[in-house]
């Protein structure tokens, strides 16, 4: 296929050609960034969370009398444990993706103190049975002993009196990038120091807490005995038993202390609610992408059809002097390919600048380079697909048209 005659013809139709290039460039730029945003959000939804998400139910209790909380919580846990099908129960101060939680800036020695780069860490505290209920995956070291739970009392500053802690892999990596975390210390302020006895696979925080995805796995786990404030009950069972156990559990707890407000839900619901906004943004972005590509495709069809109609005579002459249908098809396909190439070249540049702009004004990271060629290929294909109809119509122009004067 010779490109020279196509370029010569395009030079005669500068404005329509320019419009197609512009449309493809804009579509390419928007597509790149929208797909990148979709990818980021899907990655966020699929962040690893090494707990038994499908087996955990959350039963929250509010309005516990602080004076009798210790005994009440122990009694509630015993009641929940008796429900058939329950394999483990624990009381926690908060739970992953629960959207409200306790956090502290921490340091690795009391002397070091805090500065603005100190990591902000989610402080999970649980009573005996916590690791089994959550289904934590131990990678290194050990879990807590019975005595460590029993001896640990929640202090007036809401930190437990224990001296041991389990950290997630990501937090260990952040605090001691080059060393083994076991035996190292984490300090919350100058009074509460904890020695790392175990490292577990990453567990998500209750919320991103303003730190973004990078901080989403910075959690530590502390043993504590029942106390006011440690009053979210987690119950583990098989997935199909969850609904029944929640129903029974709520009834039991309400009967035990009629003045409290009990609220039960499965962890699956917790996850759905937490990511609901993110998911709807993904759908909205995807919808915009699809509609935008459709509009672009129709634009190409419209302009190319117009231009096929204008050149019926020329096509007829070409057919009369020996061009096959395939030649005519190829002509329009190549022409579209050239326009698309110009379009995606400008589009990729535009996409990159939009990404830079978004990085400046929003919490957005740099777009990986492969998004650019990927959306370029998508628009090339779209262009070829859109031009197929008009090109086929052009190929069907009979040679006899050349002999007519109109």
């Amino acid at each position, binding site marked *: 296929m010779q490109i020279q005659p196509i370029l010569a013809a395009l030079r005669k139709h500068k*404005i*329509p050609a320019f*419009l*197609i290039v*512009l*449309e493809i460039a*804009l*579509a390419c*730029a*928007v597509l790149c960034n*929208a797909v990148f*945003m979709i990818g980021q959000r899907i990655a966020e939804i699929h962040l690893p969370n090494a707990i038994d998400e499908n087996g955990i139910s959350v039963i929250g209790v*509010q*309005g516990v009398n*602080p004076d009798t909380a210790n005994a009440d919580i122990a009694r509630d846990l015993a009641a929940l444990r008796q429900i058939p099908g329950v394999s483990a129960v624990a009381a926690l101060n908060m739970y992953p993706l629960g959207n*409200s939680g306790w956090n502290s800036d921490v340091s690795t020695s009391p002397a070091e*103190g*805090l*500065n*603005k780069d100190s990591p902000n860490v989610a402080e999970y505290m649980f009573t005996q049975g916590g690791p089994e209920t959550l289904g934590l995956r131990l990678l290194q070291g050990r879990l807590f002993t019975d005595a460590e739970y029993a001896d640990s009392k929640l202090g*007036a*500053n*809401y930190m437990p009196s224990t001296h041991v802690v389990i950290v997630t892999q990501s937090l260990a990596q952040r605090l001691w990038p080059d060393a083994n975390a076991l035996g190292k210390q984490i300090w*919350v*302020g*100058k*009074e*509460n120091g904890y020695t790392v006895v175990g490292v577990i696979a990453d567990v998500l925080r209750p919320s991103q807490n*303003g730190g973004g995805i990078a901080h989403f796995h910075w959690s530590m786990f502390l043993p504590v005995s029942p106390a006011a404030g440690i009053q979210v009950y987690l119950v583990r069972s098989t997935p199909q038993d969850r609904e029944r156990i929640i129903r029974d559990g709520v009834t039991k707890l*309400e009967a035990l202390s009629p*003045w*409290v*407000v009990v609220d039960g839900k499965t962890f699956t619901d917790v996850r759905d*609610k937490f990511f*609901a*906004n993110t998911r*709807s*943004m993904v759908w*909205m*972005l995807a919808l*915009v992408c699809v*509609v*935008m590509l459709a*509009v*672009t495709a*129709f*634009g190409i069809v*419209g*302009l190319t*059809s*117009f*231009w096929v*109609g*204008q050149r019926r005579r020329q096509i007829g002459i070409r057919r009369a002097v020996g061009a096959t249908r395939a030649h005519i098809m190829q002509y329009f396909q190549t022409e579209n390919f050239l326009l698309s190439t110009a379009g995606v070249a400008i589009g990729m540049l535009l996409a990159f600048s939009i990404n830079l702009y*978004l990085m400046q004004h*929003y*919490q957005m990271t740099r777009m990986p380079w492969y998004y650019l060629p990927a959306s370029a290929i998508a628009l090339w294909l779209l262009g070829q697909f859109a031009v197929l109809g008009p090109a086929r119509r052009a190929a069907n122009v009979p040679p006899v048209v050349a002999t007519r004067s*109109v």
Partner: protein
Amino acid sequence: MFAYYLDLALRSFRRNRVLTTLMVLALALGIGASITTLTVLKLLSGDPLPQKSARIFAPEIDPLTAASTTPAEKLWRDWGNLMTYTDAMNLLHARKGVRQSVMMLTRAKVTPQEAGQHPFYSDGVAATADFFAMFDASFQYGGGWSANDDESRAHVTVIAGFLNDKLFGGQNSVGQMLRVNDKDYRIIGVLKRWAPQPRFYSTSLGGRGYGNGDAVFLPLQSAFADKMNPQNVNCFDTGFDIAQLDTAPCAWLSLWVELASAADAGAYKTFLSNYVAQQIALGRMHHPDVDLPDLMGYLAQQQVVPDDARLQVNLAFGFLLICVVNTVGLLLAKCLRRSREIGVRRALGASRGAIFAQFMIEAGMVGVAGGVLGLIFAELGLWAIRHQPAEYAKLAHLDMAMFFATFVVALIASLIAGLLPAWRACVVAPAPQLKAS
């Protein structure tokens, strides 16, 4: 002439039904998306107190320890106008504003009077006396409490209209008792519907940014004496007892001040600086930075509007731009196809201006049709948003201004799209076109 051009445009549409439908549809989709996202953004970045927001200020100070290296701007972005009990009370009692109120949010357990009904949790505010007057919360029945009630820890409460409807069937409940967090409070006022959007006073206190108003309002000192916990506590030093929040190195109260005019802000800021300087001299504080943003400035600083909402507006307008370019292309194709008709009209005496006007009117009609259809798409889009889980979702409705904006945007978009084709049409030379036929 106008009527004649309208008629010509209609004839042209009828001749190219598919092309016309495509043009209108694309434009309508772009406009629908833009108006939907703009409506949401307008809702999210609205002024919660339009009459007086320029006179409402959020004093910000830096209570962190001497060792802290956190820049004050970063602290304020995270904490807003949160303060320790001591600072909040000192500034409140200085009474340097026309009105001032210190507040916290708390989960309020409400126990219905009838036996057998379960207690439930609702959003509670514990605030000092000026809260209602300063924030334009007006009463359906009764009124608020006085500064004396607050200091004497009176067990009085104001409830929201919707809670009054729920508990007392909308009757005047002033004088009735309400059990809040297992303590009895006497109802002295019932609010009319009050739910400023954004909930500017709530974000730094650990509350939602948008959505329903709060249900139960209590005097701050009474709630504090009854050991109700604030929703958000930020401690910045060690060695404290969380049960003694009034002396703990923790920020958990926010202060808002109403000044007589925006011009008084300078004087208040000086007062604030002097206060901090005095506290530094006493050794209580260590950082001299202060700030006094007004309400809208404060909302901007707190970045209340979610990034996603602004991104969606950008995306929608990007999409609209693509639709406009698309319309330019299709209009151009249409009008170049009619070169011969233009040639005839020119030969019969139509001026270039007349041709230009004819094609602009045709473009404008595409715009009006796109606007009407866009309005339908926008209503559909807003309907979809109302079914989203976001806390502001229920509030997404098209208002009068956005209704007209739809047509303005549609008309402007289509006229811009029509410029190039109309110009190409009016420079068509009549002679060659006539010769060809």
